[in-house]
C-alpha cells in the first residue's frame, strides 16, 4: 500500500511536470522539490493537487496546503499517506 502511494506520487510528478521516468525514480525522501525543480511553479501545484485527489481518491482541503508540503519528495509522500489512511 505504502509503496503503491509512493509510486503514484512518482507518476504524478512525471505526468504533471513532464519529468523523465529516470528523474522521478531517483527521488528519495530528501529530494527537494519546490524551489529546486523549475517545472514546479505555484501554477503547477494546482494541477498536482487535483490529480492527487483523483488518483488516490482523497479530498485535499486547501487549508492543508502550505509551503512545507512541496518542500521535499518525502513530505509529499507522507502527506499523501496520511490522507489515504484518514
Amino acid at each position: 500500500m505504502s509503496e503503491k502511494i509512493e509510486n503514484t506520487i512518482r507518476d504524478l510528478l512525471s505526468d504533471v511536470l513532464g519529468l523523465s521516468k529516470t528523474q522521478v525514480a531517483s527521488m528519495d525522501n530528501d529530494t527537494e522539490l519546490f524551489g529546486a525543480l523549475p517545472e514546479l511553479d505555484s501554477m503547477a501545484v494546482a494541477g498536482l493537487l487535483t490529480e492527487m485527489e483523483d488518483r488516490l481518491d482523497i479530498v485535499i482541503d486547501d487549508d492543508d496546503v502550505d509551503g512545507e508540503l512541496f518542500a521535499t519528495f518525502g513530505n509529499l509522500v507522507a502527506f499523501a499517506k496520511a490522507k489515504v489512511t484518514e
Partner: protein
Amino acid sequence: MRPPPAHLIYETGGHSEHCLSFGAVDAARTILIVPPLFDEMNRTRRMMVEAMRVLGEQGVRTLLPDLPGSNESLADMSDQTLLDWRNAVVDCASQLSATHIASIRGGCLIDDAAKLPLWRLAPAKGTSLLKTMLRTRVVADKEAGISTTVEQLLTAAQSAPLDLAGILFGQEMLAALDMALPSTETGIHEVMLADINGTPLWLRAEPSDNPAMSTAIAADLDCWSASCGG
C-alpha cells in the same frame, strides 16, 4: 509536402463557427474530434492536429470544431453552457457529415448527443476540471498580492462572470460543470494513456507536443473506426 488543413464553417446557436479539417471530403470515414475543454484545449491542440494529419494521409477525414466562445468564435464565452456545447457537437456532426466521434478529457462530457460511435481518451469529471482552474486562480491571485478563497470566487460568480485561466465562466456553466460526468452508455471504446504510450499533455503547466503519441492515437482511431459503425 504534407496535406494542408481545410477551414470549414458550421452553424450553431445563431453563430458561424470555425472547424479545422484534414482529409478528402469524399472519404468513407469522418471522425469529429471533441477536444478537451478550457485551458486543456490549448495544451493539446498540436497533439490533436498532428493525429489529424496522420489520419488524413491514411484516407480518414477528421474535423476539429471550435466550440462557441473558444478559439476563433465570436460568441460570448460567458453566455455558453455545457448544453450549448453538446448541441454544437451535434450541429457540427450533422452539417459536416461526421461518421464517428473521438473525444478527449472534458470533451467526453459533451460527446453523447450526436448518437455516433464513440471513442474516448482519458475522460475527465467536470468537477475535477473546475477545481483545478479555481485553485490556479487562487494561486495567481495570491502571487498578485490578493487573498481570495474558492468560496469567495463562487459567491462573486453569482453576480458577474468568473475569470478562470483567462476564460469567462457564466453561472450556468459553472453549475453544470460541477455536476458533469461522462455519459455511461455501452459500446464506448475507451482508451487509457498506457494503451497509446501517452503522456497527459493536458496537465502540463506549459504546452507541449508528442508526435509519437499523436501517431499512436491516429493508429488506434483508424483501427477502431474501420471496424465500428460509420
